[in-house]
């Protein structure tokens, strides 16, 4: 069995080529952070991908990631505690990695 050919990624686990992303790839990347993806994760993943498609940038920082989520899903989900529970570590970085977006510039 060869479920998904693992695409090329950089040393922090981000995809080298965004076109390699698929939901199956997301599952593999997430597993490395001990995340098993549930609906609540997918909601954010699709939101991030939609955001990237519309604006051609990853939210450049955690704070702006939270704002982007808040704008779409309201305060209940657009807050850093909720997003930190979903995406461990630095939530913007982890979520962008799983969603196949470029590494945020981390400039904030």
């Amino acid at each position, binding site marked *: 069995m060869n479920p998904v050919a693992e695409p090329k990624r950089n*040393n*922090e686990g981000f995809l080298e080529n965004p076109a390699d992303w698929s939901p199956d790839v997301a599952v593999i990347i997430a597993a490395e952070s001990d995340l098993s993806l549930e609906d609540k994760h997918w909601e954010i993943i699709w939101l991030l991908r939609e955001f990237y498609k519309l604006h051609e940038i990853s939210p450049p*920082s955690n704070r702006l990631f939270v704002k982007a989520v808040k704008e779409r899903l309201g305060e209940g989900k657009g807050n850093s505690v909720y997003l930190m529970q979903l995406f461990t570590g630095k939530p913007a970085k982890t979520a962008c990695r799983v969603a196949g977006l470029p590494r945020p*510039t*981390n*400039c*904030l």
Partner: protein
Amino acid sequence: MPKTTALSFTLIITGAPYVSQAPQTALEFARAVIAAGHRIDRVFLYGDAVHLASTLACAPSDEPQWTQIWSEFLETHRVPAIVCIASALRRGVLDEKEQKRYQRPAHNLEPPFEIAGLGEWVEGTVSSDRTLYFHPTD
């Protein structure tokens, strides 16, 4: 003009050395700020100015070595100096941490410059009494 109480300054340089006058005008201003008894909270390098923090710049011996001159000034007066990470990465100014992260063959950040984000600039503009920018002339 009546002498005011000591003020704190944040200086942002956006013009590169040897391309613009910005780093030298900023330095003369910074010296005058200290001479007047004020304090410099932070110097922030943004855009092309990040080249000022490159320890690999080699000017001819009869020209000022701006990186060293700035570095000495910052050390002498214990002024924190921040290099914007987004500007620095694009232009190849890296500290050891970013060198490892991006797997590059060398790092070249002159101390005491440090790499950090624009949050440092926001902090400076909000908390300092005065904020000045030193831009290129083009």
